[in-house]
């Protein structure tokens, strides 16, 4: 049975390209534009992996991560961010600290993401 992945990003093109890439790799993909939508989606169709951006309107990416970890402890979480390492806005180390399963800095090679996913949810 195909694994289900939920992609959360406020950029429509980012959501679209990730969805297309992951579908080509054989995953079932849902998308959401913010944390609230993501939780709604998850309630309807629980995903095995959450891929979320940290910069999002409405709710900080951390809020989504926190909600998922409490409500869906079995869902793996991958965090992606466009923040740079030389500024204060680099949230990836923070994400690692609160115990997400993997972090990726934008832009990233889709093969890297696929390798990560393979390790997390072997089909």
């Amino acid at each position, binding site marked *: 049975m195909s694994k289900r992945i939920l992609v959360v990003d406020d*950029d429509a093109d*980012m959501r679209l*390209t990730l969805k*297309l*890439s992951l579908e080509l790799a054989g995953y079932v993909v849902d998308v959401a534009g913010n944390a609230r939508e993501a939780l709604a989606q998850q309630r309807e169709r629980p995903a095995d992996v959450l891929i979320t951006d940290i910069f999002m309107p409405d709710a900080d990416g951390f809020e989504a991560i926190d909600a998922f970890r409490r409500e869906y402890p079995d869902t793996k979480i991958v965090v992606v961010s466009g923040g740079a390492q*030389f*500024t204060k*806005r680099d949230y990836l180390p923070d994400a690692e600290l609160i115990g997400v399963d993997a972090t990726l800095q934008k832009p*990233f090679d*889709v093969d890297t993401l696929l390798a990560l996913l393979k390790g997390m949810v072997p089909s």
Partner: protein
Amino acid sequence: MKLRSHLLVLSIATAAPIVALATVIAVVVVKQERDSVRDAAGERVVAVMSAIDAELRGSIATLRAMAASAHLESGNLKGFHSDAMRIFATHPDWLDFTLARGDGIRLLNSANPPGKDLGPVSDRESFDLAMQRGEPVIGRVAPGPEGRSLGIPLRMPVANPDGTLKYMVTVVLKPDAFSDVLRAQKLPEGWVVNLIDSNHKVIARLPPMPAGRPASDSFRAQLAKAPHGWFRGKTLEGREVYTPYLTSALSGWTLGIGMPTGTLDAAAWRGLWLLVVLIGVASAVAVGFALLLSWRIAKPIAALAAASEAVGRGERAEFPARTPIAEIDSLAATLKQAAEAMREKHELAEREKTALQAADRAKDEFLAMLSHELRNPLAALTAAAHVLKLATPNESAAIKARGVVERQTKHMARLVADLLDISRVAMGKVALERERFNLYEAVGNLLNVWRASGRLERHRLMVDARPVWVDADRARLDQILSNLLDNAVKFTPAGKRITVTVGPQGEMALLRVSDEGEGLPPDSAERMFDLFVQGERGLDRAAGGLGVGLALVKRLTEMHGGTVSAMSAGPGRGATFTVLLPAVLPPSTRATKPEEPTRVAPRRVLIVEDNDDTRQMLFEALAFSGHDVREARDGATGIALAAESRPDVALIDIGLPDVDGYEVARRLRAAPGGRNIGLIAITGYGQPEDQKRAYEAGFDAHLTKPVAAERLKQVMAGLQ
């Protein structure tokens, strides 16, 4: 040492010589006082002595007369005795008289007539002296030969023709006689007067003392030193006295007048004591003044010192406003100025520090934003590339991915262009291509482009435009307005109003964009134009951007010699950005005359417009094209004028003061011959909804302000 002590020393230093001088004067005065008393006493001594000498001289004169008696020459002793007895009776001061032979045997006295030997004389020494000198001699106080009361012998020799002593005549004086002389002087109570003979035995004294008694030791010791003068000694009663004394040349007797030391010293002490009291009072007054003065001086100085310390600690200082001392006042004023300068400097430094920190933070945020803005499209592009690599070209996934690539590269291109632009402007590498043009028309053209692109469709655009000319770079002015509009659109919710105003304002040309959007945080208006400063929703992609738009507006405006300002009534209450550029005179109409001739046939045109500038502009444009133009300021006048002049075309403003433009159009259309009239709406509302409403009211065409002359021509031509 404290100021108080200094002043104390000062006052004491000033007072001390005065006190010293006063002391010297007092001592001199006291001494003079004593000397004058003593001198008076001394004169008294001389006077008394003179009286005593006079007394003695009287007796000596009588004695001489007795010695020269003829009875003695003839040896008639009886006759002498009887004469002498007569004289004796008139001299109560005499104790006795005697006549002695040359060998010292007395022959007679007052009690015994001649006839028998009366024995030797008692004071042999004076007898011998008188015999030797042949002159009267005053003897000593001594008891008589019969041991009777004390007397003082005065002796006068009577010589034989051969020079040997024949007789010695003696008068014995009563010491009491001199007591009377002393008593007559009426000396003050407590004083002592003492008359002593050459043997220092008392002759007479007050208070009384038996005659013949030796004078006091101190008197005798003093007499051994000098025959006259004064000394301090003890009386026979043992009282301390100052005594001036004098020894008579005539008698060899000495008179002393003793003044109790108490009398003199008391006066001196009284003077000294008064002096001490006065010095004490003067010193106390001086010290008191010194303390008062030091308090008056030290208090403001202490206050000043406290204020200065407060300044040093960086606290707000209270400087004494007014003190009794001008120098301290000026010092306080100077210190106050210095403190204020220091505080201003400090505040300036604080502000600069804050500004630097803010700039640093803005730079950090810019870098984060830049990273975010560039990495996001890159991430999408990378994923799209991945899809394109795997999917066949005609697959839906590939088609979608190509769309992503197209959009994201465009987006990135714009970001990069913005960045390059701001850096070129910041480095001064942008040269302005200036030309003289009507800002009103330029704004109209740009708004038409924006309307056509649909970027304004979510908002209600209001335009308030009047002609104004500027000497500027068209492309850069378009950029300024575009950035301001971009900003307004970005931060204004759909359906809210955005107002663009253009026109003259004094010497300047005004370009203003107001919105009903989020407004600005308090006190941030000035900061809005700094590079990289973002609206509060910096994380929101919808409002995203690099924060260079307004910075560009500011730099470009300043390059044109203009100013830009932001204003907001607060968060949620909209913002207004105002650009002011130097206005220039429009080029003369003659210069613009050789334009291509109008292709519009002359017609009767009515303008109904309440804005004088817009009406004037329309009037000139139409009249220049050869039309017969009438004007009205409001709806009612317009309708009346139309009935009278029967225009071919009417340009009607929608927002009229009395009835609205739609109503005017309906009436004109309904009027006789109104079916053929060309009706053009002129409005600041450019939404499709507004146009629809205009057509429904009977308008043939719809022109959005600002009305470009070329567009007007087109519409006029279209109505033919």
